[in-house]
């Protein structure tokens, strides 16, 4: 119904072209865009990075305060992240708002729908979702060529890392999203998948939720060989919290001194830079050359 009205209003014959210009988001909502949007508000750093990576950076008119990559993105007008302000959103006159599912407020969504501002919701549950989001955004913005190239590069990078780490002995990993209380990644999160791709075994594999609050008892029992701490300004684990982990001297990771850091914005953001994050992770799990001493220190 809505599509039909929009089709008429924009003077488009709602037949052949319509289907290729309608999109279904990860909540199953269908939106129709008569032409590529020119004023986009991105409500997640990963979305902002993707838009810039496919060359649509100039169409971005609003970002969150955590969108700091590429540097140009940080210059864009800011709207909130978890709590974006409705009026400042509307004032930016967006013809598309792209938001992650996690932090979406339903009342805000309702109001935006009422105001006829298209909202597209992305849920990143797997690595495949990241690829499909790049493709979808490419189609939406008439930047399919760039999106396909970006997706190909990313796939190749991941495939290369997967091949490089294949055949190496699996390494037990704990990814520390939050230290106190301990929150980590579990099945159903893309980071858990990334760990598996480069020959890691997530010690939280038996958890039922994507981001479980994990029991310390389980950590001691599963005995991770590597602890990975995301680090960064706004997100990430502080140095003192990392050091506090050294008290658990029965952990193989502590014995061997394999407490490692990864910039949080590379691995925590389901965007085009996961390839870089994954490479760091692969290096951490399987230091090259492979026959380095048991301390696991990289040369």
């Amino acid at each position, binding site marked *: 119904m809505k599509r039909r009205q929009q089709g008429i209003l924009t003077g488009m014959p709602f037949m052949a072209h319509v289907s290729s210009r309608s999109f279904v988001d990860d909540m199953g909502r269908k939106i129709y865009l008569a032409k590529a949007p020119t004023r986009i508000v991105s409500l997640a750093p990963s979305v902002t990075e993707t838009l810039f990576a496919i060359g649509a950076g100039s169409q971005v008119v609003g970002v969150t305060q*955590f969108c700091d990559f590429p540097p140009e993105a940080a210059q864009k007008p800011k709207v*909130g*992240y*978890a*709590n974006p302000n409705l009026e400042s959103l509307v004032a930016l006159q967006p013809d598309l708002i792209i938001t992650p599912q*996690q*932090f979406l407020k339903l009342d805000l969504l309702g109001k935006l729908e009422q105001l006829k501002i298209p909202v597209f919701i992305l849920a990143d549950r797997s690595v495949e979702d990241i690829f499909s989001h790049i493709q979808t955004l490419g189609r939406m913005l008439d930047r399919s060529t760039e999106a396909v190239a970006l997706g190909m590069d990313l796939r190749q990078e991941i495939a290369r890392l997967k091949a490089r780490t294949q055949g190496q002995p699996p390494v037990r990993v704990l990814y520390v*999203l*939050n*230290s*106190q*209380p*301990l*929150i980590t990644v*579990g099945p159903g999160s893309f980071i858990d998948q990334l760990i598996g791709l480069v020959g890691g075994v997530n010690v*939280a594999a*038996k*958890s*039922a*939720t994507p*981001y*479980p*609050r*994990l*029991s*310390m*008892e*389980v950590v*001691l*029992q599963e*005995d991770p060989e590597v602890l990975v701490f995301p680090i960064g300004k*706004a*997100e990430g684990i*502080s*140095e*003192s*919290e990392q*050091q*506090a982990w050294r*008290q*658990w*001297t*029965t952990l193989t990771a502590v014995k061997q001194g394999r407490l490692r850091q990864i910039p*949080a914005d590379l691995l*925590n953001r389901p965007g085009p830079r996961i390839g870089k994050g994954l490479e760091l992770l692969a290096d951490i799990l399987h230091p090259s050359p492979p026959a380095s001493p048991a301390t696991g220190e990289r040369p």
Partner: protein
Amino acid sequence: MRGQWQRTGAILSSRRWGLILSGLLLASLGVVLLCSRFGAALVPWGDVFPALVHALKTGEWDQSSIGTSGVILMQVRLPRVLMGFLVGGSLAAVGVTLQALLRNPLADPYVLGVSSGAALGAAVTMLLGIGTTMALLPVLPLCGFAGGLLALVVIYRLAQSQGRLPIHSLLLAGVILNAILTALIMFITSIMEPNRSAGLMAWLMGSLIAPGYPALGVLAGYAVFVLAIVMQKAQMLNVLTLGEETARSLGIDTERMKKQLFVLTALLTGAVVSVSGMIGFVGMVVPHAVRLVLGSDHRLLLPASVLVGGMFLVAADTIARTLFAPAEIPVGIVTALIGGPFFLYLLLWRKDRML
């Protein structure tokens, strides 16, 4: 409620006192041991005890000599169970004391805003990313404690405007301060990076992850110190519940006593919140439940509430850390969902008996 409130004068024989308390003490020991049995990881006691005995004999009490199972039992699970007992007992004691001081059955360590002050202090630490320990100093508990103390000072100044501490202004100030502090905490979580704010929220909802035996010892020191003084004043609390006029006519300096006990309970609350986050419900409900069963003589009510509160929180935390193992759920959710219906049942059962 009024009925039990006035049974204060009932004679408490020392035999009944001793019997009930030793019963509860035994039960507490049982609960602590039983709950140490359960956890996300399987700890075969048969393997652990020889290692522990050996470690005790040789004095080599390091992690490699007691093995992973030993570490899980002695350094993760047992401290946590003990911490649960301490926190639960302290919250219940504070609840009993405040309910008597304010003669208000709704009084609770959380109503006065001290706990949110402590929580705010901790939240600020997390926002600044200072971390939980610095040069072996537990920064998070210290900042939480400072926040709680600050809230206490503010509320004390506010309420003390006429040199006295009228109860209604105290409660009112507490409620308003609580609202302000909670709003500040919410403000902090809303400007934080979502991953970090999720961590803060998880902490706020209550987490009994024990920071180790030294910290436990400090908390125990607070608890014993405050309890000892409050116990000494149990008889005076009995009198106070009869009414302030009555108490004053019996020669009790009620203002002084109220100030003293108020500061003490606030101190204990600050210490507890700074290590465990916001575990509501225990401080309000446990004293009531105990009062319904054992009557309201504070000489019995106070120690009994401490033991029951301890047992209750240990049991609740055992559920919180095993129900969805290997994941944990915030213990505050369990205390409310298990304790609430139980309390309602107790209320109905008791009403039945009295009619």
